[in-house]
């Protein structure tokens, strides 16, 4: 280049004004969504209660006593009543939250990691590779999700590990599909062409240009799956395919309390209510996130 440039001529310029990043904006918009914030707070409380359950629990969630069977809500020492074996409901619900939340969230996280990797790869590769991957995914997708989850854990046998495995398998194709379609969409945008025109390798293009555009939508989709996952995981336990007794888990508690519904309908309804509250909170949060991500850009 003929024009000599003094390298420092512009570096000296004062601090560059920086716009808040995309995620910061999303976050601040999310904070203004009252429903989403409320849902987030509820979830936070649930998480705290669940994680610190061993220290926060008022009673022993495993200690049964015939004298205290099926006490109503508000009984002394049993703020939320007691279950069919006289165990403290509050403690069991708190401890049960651990497993329920764990079983609801873990499959989505694993499926998110695996599914978006596959989906982004397929979307970016395009062509035959894409076709092969997506046709295979179509096969898994041909099973309604609940059916697949139940069939898999039914076949593998009851247990937490098997439930997690089958739920993960159920969610992977769904996430792959979303990831693939977003990636395909982004891939055909001109800024990707521009990046290619600059001679960047595929790896560089994916990591630097595509990921930051596709992870958001995939993430939102995954968030909305958590609620499905919660309901499904509890459903598996409810059927006797998930957590085994006496471990407290909301779905399982709901199942074992089914017959108590004639004696203490409110107590028996509690585990279901907990599943409901958690899943609706996740849904509201996911909705809020989706809305917040619709930042006009």
């Amino acid at each position: 280049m003929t024009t000599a440039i003094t390298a420092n001529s512009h570096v000296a310029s004062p601090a560059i004004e920086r716009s808040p990043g995309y995620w910061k904006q999303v976050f601040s918009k999310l904070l203004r969504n009252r429903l989403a914030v409320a849902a987030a707070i509820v979830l936070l409380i649930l998480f705290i209660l669940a994680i610190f359950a061993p220290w926060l629990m008022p009673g022993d969630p495993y200690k049964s006593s015939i004298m205290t069977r099926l006490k109503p809500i508000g009984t002394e020492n049993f703020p939320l009543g007691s279950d069919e074996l006289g165990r403290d409901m509050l403690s069991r619900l708190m401890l049960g939250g651990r497993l329920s939340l764990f079983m609801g969230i873990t499959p989505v996280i694993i499926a998110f990691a695996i599914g978006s990797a596959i989906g982004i790869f397929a979307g970016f590769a395009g062509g035959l590779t894409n076709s092969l991957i997506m046709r295979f995914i179509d096969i898994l997708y041909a099973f309604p999700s609940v059916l697949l989850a139940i069939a898999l854990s039914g076949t593998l046998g009851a247990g937490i590990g098997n439930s997690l495995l089958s739920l993960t398998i159920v969610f992977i194709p769904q996430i792959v599909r979303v990831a693939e379609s977003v990636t395909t969409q982004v891939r055909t945008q001109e800024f990707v062409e521009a990046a290619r025109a600059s001679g960047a390798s595929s790896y560089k293009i994916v990591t630097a240009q595509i990921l930051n555009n596709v992870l958001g939508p995939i993430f939102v989709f995954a968030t909305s799956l958590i609620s499905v996952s919660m309901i499904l995981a509890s459903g598996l336990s409810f059927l006797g395919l998930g957590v085994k007794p006496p471990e407290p888990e909301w779905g399982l508690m709901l199942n074992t309390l089914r017959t108590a519904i004639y004696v203490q309908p409110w107590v028996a309804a509690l585990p279901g209510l907990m599943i409901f509250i958690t899943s609706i909170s996740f849904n509201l949060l996911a909705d809020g996130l989706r809305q917040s991500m619709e930042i006009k850009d």
Partner: protein
Amino acid sequence: ASVLRIAMTAADIPRTLGQPDQGFEGNRFTGIPMYDALVHWDLSSDKGPTPLTPGLATEWQVVDNDKTKWIFKLRPGVKFHDGSPFNADAVVWNVDKVLNKEAKHYDPSQIGVTASRMPTLRSARKIDDLTIEITSSEPDSFLPYNLTNLFMVSPTQWESKYSQVPAAVKDPLERSKQAWTAFASNPAGTGPFKLAKLVPRERLELEKNSEYWNPARVPKIDKVVMIPMPEASARTAALLSGQVDWIEAPSPDALEAIKGRGNIIYSNAQPHIWPWQLSFAEGSPWLDKRVRHAANLCIDRSGMKSMLGGLMSEASGITSKDSPWWGNPSFEIKYDADAGRKLMTEAGYSVAKPMKVKTQISASGSGQMQPLPMNEYIQQNLKECFIDVEFDVVEWNTLFTSWRLGAKDPGAHGAHATNVSAAAMDPFFAMVRFVSSKALPPVSNNWGLFQSAEFDEIITAARTSFEPEARDAELAKLHARIVEEAPFIFVAHDVGPRAMSPKVKGVVQPKSWFIDIATMSME
């Protein structure tokens, strides 16, 4: 027309081809109503232990010089539902269906539920039209009890099904299988009820057999509908919403609500034991007798009883103390957790070093009472005595099947105990099959592989005593030893709770596992 609708605890209709599955609930609902055996239980009274009574055989006797042979006189003039006569040929045919592998109608799918209930039965031979000779593998005074479980189906009906199997099916095994399938949906027995309609998994409709041979048991109810409803809460809801007239095993928590609607709860002590059957396989922690005693001492049975709304009786052995087989054991089964913990400490366990065991249980099932809460309750109790229990929850049929396969079978999933509740009405079912070395799996239900020469001797003595008093004395000795050796955790006896609408009349709930629908009526 009067209709009686029953909600069963089974998940499916018990098989209708003669030898029902689904445990004794199968016998109760598709065995006894539709079929007759050579020997029957007398279910007409709710007082005292249920005795045997002649069924399709009018009398029987062991052959004096060869105690492995019995002569049975058959009831004349009995007809199957298809109109064909019941006779000695039919009995031989019915014995062959489960014992003669050469017979064309031999059905492997039925022997599983049959062989274990009559392990000594070997063959039947026709003497004349109304007399047969039955051979057992060894002298066995319990045989008449066992024969209550062999239901007679019509060979003619089966043959006609067989001939209708499409010619395209060549394989004889496959032809026989298809014939049995066809027979199951259109069977013929001699019982007080005939099958009217079968919707698999949904409902079984029986209609009355007005030509039944026993006038006392000619049904007064025109139609009986049986609906499988494994969920206790579903059964309760069905009764409360008037969908059925009778539910088996109502959930204890719902008893007040059920009674509150004017329904009646029937219960009566049953010859039944709800135990944990312990494994004596290599490596089982239960091999130590102190531990077995400790576990028996740690169960708070009265607490459990109140948990079940009173619908159980506390077990102090396999039989109750008023039974002729009680025998005054020296080890008393009661709740004494301190004594239990002491034994555990002696055996080397403590809070810090608990004993870990795995127990195979079911979530529901015929006679299983309320398996989940009861087992969780036991789990709690045992935890106090340094025993950590892990459950392997399997479906009832699976549990039942693996019960025959023994503790070492892969089907046991490595469990150290199994929780199959059992009818205990005859000596074989009550005791022998659990502790005899001849009953080791896969022959019968000595799941825990318990073996003792002493026990085998007592058993042989009992088996070969064809005089009732002498036999009972031997059996009492056996029972006392069983309690002392404690191959079980003895927990509860079922009281067979069932709830019925007040419209069902003439209900007699005997001290039995079974109940006679034929003598009931509907208002």
